[in-house]
């Protein structure tokens, strides 16, 4: 499913003294099959944007605030807002938002804090039961839950009757992710999936997301503060600042704007920092900013120079 947003704006508490514009005229397209990154500070609008993608924030009710009631003479009408996810038109009130939510899975920050059921099986089955039109048989539920629990790398037989609250932190997060992907969404959106984990846990979560991207969900969108995470994993990334989109580029082009990103108060990957420092000495390292590629390119330069010296 392709995600298309054009001229999307959103204001919290419109018309009150606490009104704050969270999105301003955002246009952004995410193609099917991408591993897409969304970067920005807290309050840059990135969370507001992703919450639109499965209709948790609704356009129809808020839209009237951005369109003038009466146009002045000679004034052109503002461009129409477009927001589609596959065939779902999110600007249309009549859209079936439940069907949309089934197709767009959303994993919030610290998802383990949303576990509630008595057993792992019941918790993972929650979404499955909610989204199915007719009552599912126990066997059908078991099969779907088993597949989801196993794909996140846990042992179903061992865990199914355990309370989710007895598990370790890393296991809880996996169970929470299983509870979202169990309905086999086409798009999976994750807000800071690795937050609060130790280095090994972080790496394991990123590996899990790549596995899900290959086998389970066509499109993966992650919101992250960690530039290394973005540069190592994403096909493209969008940079949000003050409710607007500043860049939408693949990492290899995005992090060439190291200086502009730093001016926005954002980090750049270490490889981009080193590339910029080397550039000052007149050395051009043309890498895609992953650690592996950067080292490879540096070593190639070094070998070339060594051969030239001989």
């Amino acid at each position, binding site marked *: 499913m392709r995600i298309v947003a054009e001229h999307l704006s959103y204001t*919290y*508490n419109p018309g009150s003294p*606490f009104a*704050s514009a969270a999105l301003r005229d955002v246009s952004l397209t995410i193609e099917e099959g991408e591993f897409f990154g969304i970067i920005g500070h807290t309050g840059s609008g990135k969370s507001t944007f992703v*919450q639109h993608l*499965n209709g*948790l924030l609704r356009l129809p009710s808020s839209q009237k605030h951005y369109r003038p009631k009466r146009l002045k003479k000679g004034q052109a009408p503002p461009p129409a807002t477009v927001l589609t996810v596959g065939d779902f038109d999110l600007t249309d009130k009549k859209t079936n938002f*439940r069907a949309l*939510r*089934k197709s767009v*899975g*959303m994993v*919030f*920050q610290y*998802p383990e*804090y*949303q*576990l*509630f*059921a008595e057993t792992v099986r019941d918790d993972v089955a*929650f*979404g499955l039961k*909610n*989204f199915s039109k007719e009552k599912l048989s126990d066997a059908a539920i078991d099969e779907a839950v088993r597949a989801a629990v196993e794909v996140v790398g846990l042992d179903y037989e061992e865990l199914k009757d355990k309370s989710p*609250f007895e598990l370790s932190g890393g296991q809880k997060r996996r169970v929470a992710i299983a*509870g*979202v992907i169990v*309905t086999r969404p086409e798009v999976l959106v994750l807000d800071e999936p690795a937050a609060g984990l130790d280095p090994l846990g972080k790496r394991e979560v990123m590996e899990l997301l790549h596995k899900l991207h290959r086998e389970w969900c066509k499109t993966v969108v992650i919101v992250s503060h960690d530039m290394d995470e973005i540069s190592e994993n994403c096909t493209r990334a969008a940079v949000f600042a003050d409710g607007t989109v500043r860049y939408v580029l693949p990492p290899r082009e995005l992090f060439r704007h190291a200086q502009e990103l730093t001016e926005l108060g954002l980090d750049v990957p270490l490889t981009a920092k080193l590339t910029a420092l080397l550039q000052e000495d007149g050395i051009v390292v043309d890498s895609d900013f992953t650690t592996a590629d950067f080292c490879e390119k540096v070593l190639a330069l070094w070998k070339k120079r060594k051969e030239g010296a001989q």
Partner: protein
Amino acid sequence: MKDVSFGQFYPVDSFVHRLDPRLKIVFLIAYIVAIFLASNFYGLAACAAVLLLIMIAARIPFGKVLRAVRAVTFLVLFTTALNVLFYKGETVYWTWKIFCVSFEGIIFSVFLALRLVLLVICSSMLTYTTTPVSLTDGVESLLTPLKWIRIPVHALALVMSIALRMIPVLMDETARIKNAQMARGADFESGNLVKRVKATIPILVPLLLSALRRADELGDAMDARCYTGGNHRTKYKKLRFTWRDLVAFLLVAALIGGVVAMKILLPAPY
């Protein structure tokens, strides 16, 4: 979510905002007494005039005040209707079975309705002009005498203060959990009562667990900062009377005196 300030505090700097919260609480009580002492329209007019003065001094926009009244419109209309229909007056306009509409009934109902409206406005003036924290301080200070009969006033005030601090945090948390469960297809809006109550479990369980976890951590953080209860504790913020408090005190004293005087000197029936 957290940008919606709790209570109704209206953040401007004014004469009334700067008054000692204890005095404001006492004034509110005194004012309510005055409203109930007023037995005729002259008395109520005096009360209304004082309230108008306070509103201007507090720089609260009229619309804000109306909003407070709007919340109780139904209650006011309902009691007024009952009073009109059941008051047994002498100048009767219309009767039907046990119902009876009379001149005196209408006057009496309007009088009661005005009392109720004044009551609501003056109470909301307290919350508009006093931050939750100073309200807590005021309550703690006024309840101090209860310490003599071994009621833990300090602990109660601390609980109130922590509750006020945690309300925005827990409101955020509720919104987040609700969103997460809605993303998993939870439906909180349809079905009968039983179904709807059951639908809140996926919100309540995580919320309760989170509140317990927070309480635990907060307890540790308080211990780590040497909290041992109210004994030999000092207070950084002392409440102090100023010239403003004196002016306000005289004004309210005059109001009560005036209402009592009118009650005696102007024995009008309404």
